[in-house]
């Protein structure tokens, strides 16, 4: 083999040149361990809001009833078509699909992978997420292909006087 690795890169007689540097303490083991401890602290602090919201839900404060919201009229939604709406809040996208004369399904359509909007493809009879080709079963909302693992949250529907209302978001069965 060549003697490439045997060469001294440059002449030096001061072998301590790399010891007294600025910020030297940042690079040593002690500094690195401090960073790791700090990171553990960040994780601990960032768990708090999740815990707080979970505790709130457990105490039943999250179970609020939203006002029933009219989505559309039955006459405006042909069988096999879908309409998008917002429920329960103004920023919670949802989709209503009419499967047959009297069968409707509605889901919150933020994909359970990374929250892209899931849409209904009539020809394939599937709900599809454009971002990473996640697919959902239209009857149950459970994922059938792609990255999503969690079913879409279902919205309970009520038909009254020729209009369709969103009643509430169903909980997952525990």
């Amino acid at each position, binding site marked *: 083999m060549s003697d490439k690795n045997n060469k001294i890169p440059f002449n030096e007689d001061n072998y301590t040149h790399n010891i007294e540097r600025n910020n030297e303490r940042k690079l040593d083991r002690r500094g690195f*361990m401090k960073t790791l*401890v700090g990171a553990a602290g960040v994780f*601990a602090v960032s768990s708090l809001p999740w815990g707080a919201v979970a505790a709130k839900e457990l105490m039943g404060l999250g179970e609020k009833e939203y006002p029933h919201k009219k989505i559309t009229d039955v006459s405006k939604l042909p069988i096999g078509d879908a309409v998008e709406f917002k429920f329960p809040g103004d920023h919670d996208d949802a989709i209503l699909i009419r499967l047959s004369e009297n069968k409707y399904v509605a889901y919150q359509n933020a994909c359970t992978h990374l929250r892209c909007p899931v849409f209904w493809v009539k020809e394939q009879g599937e709900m599809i997420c454009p971002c990473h080709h996640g697919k959902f079963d239209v009857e149950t909302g459970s994922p059938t292909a792609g990255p999503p693992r969690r079913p879409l949250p279902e919205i309970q529907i009520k038909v009254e006087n020729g209009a369709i209302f969103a009643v509430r978001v169903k909980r997952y069965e525990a």
Partner: protein
Amino acid sequence: MRRSFLGVIILAAILMMNIIFTQYMVHQYYYENYEKVLIFGGLNIVLFPLAVFAYKKTINMRA
């Protein structure tokens, strides 16, 4: 194995657990299993004093 690396290894393991617990916590939150969210959030919090303890115990180890 040089003993002075023990602390780094322990802390790295703690951080790894932090990541796992956090991911689990977030997923369980969306699955609406709120008890599990509390458990894993709690574990995440407990890991911090543990990390401090591990740091203090191992920082003066030589070679």
